[in-house]
C-alpha cells in the first residue's frame, strides 16, 4: 500500500523535476511528519501514564479531572505551556539561551530516523544504524551543557556539569553493551539484529522468547537498562535535576515551551532507549511464542507492547528507588559496569569460538 501511494504521487506531475527531485523530498517529509507525530503523541501521553502509575503506586487516583479518566490532561498541559511567557534572565547569553532547548530536543527526535518499526518499516534502514544512533544520542549532552551555562545561574551550571560528567561516563558502558550485541549478531543494522534473534534452538521449538538476546546476554541487558536510566537522567540517577539541592538543574531558568522542550526530549529519549532495548534484547517485532494467534498479531503491535512495558519499568523504578549519591553514581559507572561489560565481552567472544556457539 505504501508503494502505491508513492507511485501515485510520483505520477501526479509529468515534469522531470517533479519525479526526480521534488516528490522524493515531499515523500520523505511526509514520512518524517508521520514518525514525529507518532513519537510526540507517545511523549504526550507518557506524561499522563507516568502520573497515573506514580499515583497508583502511592495509592492515589492521579489526574482525573480533565476529560474522562483525565485523558485530556496532557492536552491541557500543552495548551498551558504554549500560552506561557518565556522569561529570559537579564544576564543570560541571549542566543545560546534559546538554542539550548532546541539542541536538547533535536537529537532526541533525529534519532528516530533510523529506528525500524517492522521488518521493512523505517525512515532509513542504515547499514550502520546502531552506530548512527550512538552518535546522535551522544549529542544529547550539548543541549544540557549549553542551557546550563547560558542561564548564568549557579544552579543551572552545576546541573550542566553533573550532566556532562554522568552522561559521558555511562555512554562508555552503554557503548560496550552495543559492542556485545553487534558481535553476536554480526551486524550494525537494527533489522538484522532483530532477525538474528529469531533463529536458534528454542526458536525451532516455537519458544521464540528463549532465543532472544536477553537470556544469553542477561548481565549486558541489566547493565544496558541501568545505563539507559542514567543516560536519560531518570531517577535514581537524576542528580542532574536534583530538585532538593540544585532546584531543577539546567532547567531552572526556563519557562513555558522552552521548558517543555526539555521534558519532550526526556520522554522521547525514554521511548528511544526502551525501543532499543526491545530491538537488541527482546526480539523486536517477533512474537514471543510461535503459535497461530501470536503470529497473527502484527509485528508493530508486539514492538509497541514490549517497548511500552519497558517504559512502564522506567516509571516503576522512579517510584521505587531513592536518588543515588553522586560519587556512587560515578563508582557504579566506572568501577562496576565497565569491568562487567568488558569481562562479558571477552566471555561471549570466547563462547563464539567454541562448538557451543549459539549465534550462527
Amino acid at each position, binding site marked *: 500500500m505504501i508503494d502505491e501511494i508513492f507511485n501515485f504521487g510520483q505520477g501526479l506531475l509529468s515534469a522531470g523535476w517533479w519525479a526526480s*527531485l521534488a516528490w522524493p523530498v515531499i515523500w520523505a517529509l511526509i514520512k518524517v511528519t508521520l514518525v514525529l507525530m507518532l513519537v510526540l503523541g507517545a511523549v504526550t501521553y507518557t506524561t499522563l501514564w507516568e502520573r497515573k502509575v506514580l499515583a497508583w503506586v502511592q495509592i492515589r487516583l492521579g489526574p482525573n479531572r480533565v476529560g474522562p479518566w483525565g485523558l485530556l490532561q496532557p492536552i491541557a498541559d500543552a495548551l498551558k505551556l504554549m500560552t506561557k511567557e518565556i522569561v529570559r534572565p537579564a544576564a543570560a547569553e541571549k542566543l*545560546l539561551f534559546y538554542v539550548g532547548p532546541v539542541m536538547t530536543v533535536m537529537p532526541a527526535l533525529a534519532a528516530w530516523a533510523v529506528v525500524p518499526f517492522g521488518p521493512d518499516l523505517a525512515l532509513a534502514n*542504515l*547499514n*550502520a544504524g546502531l*552506530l*548512527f544512533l*550512538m*552518535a*546522535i544520542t*551522544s*549529542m544529547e*549532552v*550539548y543541549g544540557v*551543557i*549549553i542551557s546550563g*551555562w547560558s542561564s548564568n545561574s549557579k544552579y543551572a*551550571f552545576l546541573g*550542566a*556539569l553533573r550532566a*556532562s*560528567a554522568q552522561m*559521558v561516563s555511562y*555512554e562508555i558502558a552503554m557503548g560496550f553493551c552495543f559492542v556485545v550485541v553487534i558481535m553476536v549478531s554480526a551486524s*550494525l*543494522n537494527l533489522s538484522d539484529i532483530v532477525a538474528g534473534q529469531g533463529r536458534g534452538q528454542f526458536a525451532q521449538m516455537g519458544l521464540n522468547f528463549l532465543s532472544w538476546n536477553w537470556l544469553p546476554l542477561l548481565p549486558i541487558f541489566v547493565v544496558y537498562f541501568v545505563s539507559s536510566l542514567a543516560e536519560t537522567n531518570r531517577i535514581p540517577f537524576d542528580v542532574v535535576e536534583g530538585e532538593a539541592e540544585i532546584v531543577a538543574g539546567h532547567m531552572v531558568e526556563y519557562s513555558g515551551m522552552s521548558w517543555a522542550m526539555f521534558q519532550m526530549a526526556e520522554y522521547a529519549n525514554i521511548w528511544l532507549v526502551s525501543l532499543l532495548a526491545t530491538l537488541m534484547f527482546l526480539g523486536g517485532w517477533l512474537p514471543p511464542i510461535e503459535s497461530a494467534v501470536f503470529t497473527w498479531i502484527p509485528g508493530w503491535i508486539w514492538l509497541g507492547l514490549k517497548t511500552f512495558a519497558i517504559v512502564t519499568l522506567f516509571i516503576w523504578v522512579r517510584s521505587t528507588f531513592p536518588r543515588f549519591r553522586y560519587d*556512587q553514581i560515578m*563508582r557504579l559507572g566506572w568501577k562496576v559496569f565497565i569491568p562487567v561489560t568488558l569481562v562479558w565481552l571477552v566471555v561471549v567472544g570466547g563462547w563464539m569460538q567454541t562448538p557451543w556457539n549459539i549465534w550462527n
Partner: protein
Amino acid sequence: MDVKTGLFYFFSAVLLFAAFRVITARNPVYSALYLVLAFFQAAAIWILLRAEFLAIALVLVYVGAVMVLFLFVVMMLDINVDSLRQGFWKHFPLAAGVGVLIVLEMAAVLMGGFRISEEPKAVAVLGQSVEQVSNTRELGKLVYTQYIYPLEIAAVILLVAIIAAIALTLRQRKDSKHIDPSVQVRVRSKDRMEVVKMPATQSFAARDAAMPAEAIPGTEKQP
C-alpha cells in the same frame, strides 16, 4: 551542477565559516561550539563521499566525547578575553607564515594522490550487489587483516596514554573522607546500636550506679 555538488559547496562554505569563527569568536565557549559545527560539516562531507563509518565515528568520538570535555573546561575558566587578544598583530606574520607552509605541504601531498575528478564508486565485492556492501564491514576486514600491526601499535599507544593519565592524577590524600559504599551497605543495626534492657521503675541515680558506663543513653559506641 547536481544536488550533490550543491550540497558539497554548502557544507564546505559552512565548514570554512565555522573554522574561521573558531579563531575569531570573542567568547571561548562560542569558539568551542563553532568547532563542533565544523566537525559536523566535515562529517557531512564524508557522508557525501560514502564514507559513512568515518563520518559517524567523527561525530561519535569528537563531537560526542572530546568536545564535551573541552566545553566542560572552557565553561569553568574565567578568561579575560581582552588580555588574550593583546599582541595579535605582533605575532600574526609568524603564525601566517606557519599556516601557509602547512597548507602548501598538505596541498603538495594531497594534490598528487587525489587528483581525480570522478566521485568514488562503491566496488561490488564477489557475489554481492553494490547496495549490500557495508562500508563498516569492509573497513573492519581491512583493519584486522592487512593493517593489523598499525592498529595494534595505535592501540598500545592509546593504552599507554590512558595509564599515564591515571598515574599522573592518582594520589592518596590523607585528609580525604573517602567512604567505601560496600562497607556502608553491609552495616547492620547491631553494629551501630545496642539495645539495653531497663527495669521499668527505677530512679536515675540507682540506674546509673547499676549499669556499665557505655550503656547509658547518649554514650553509645560510635562505629
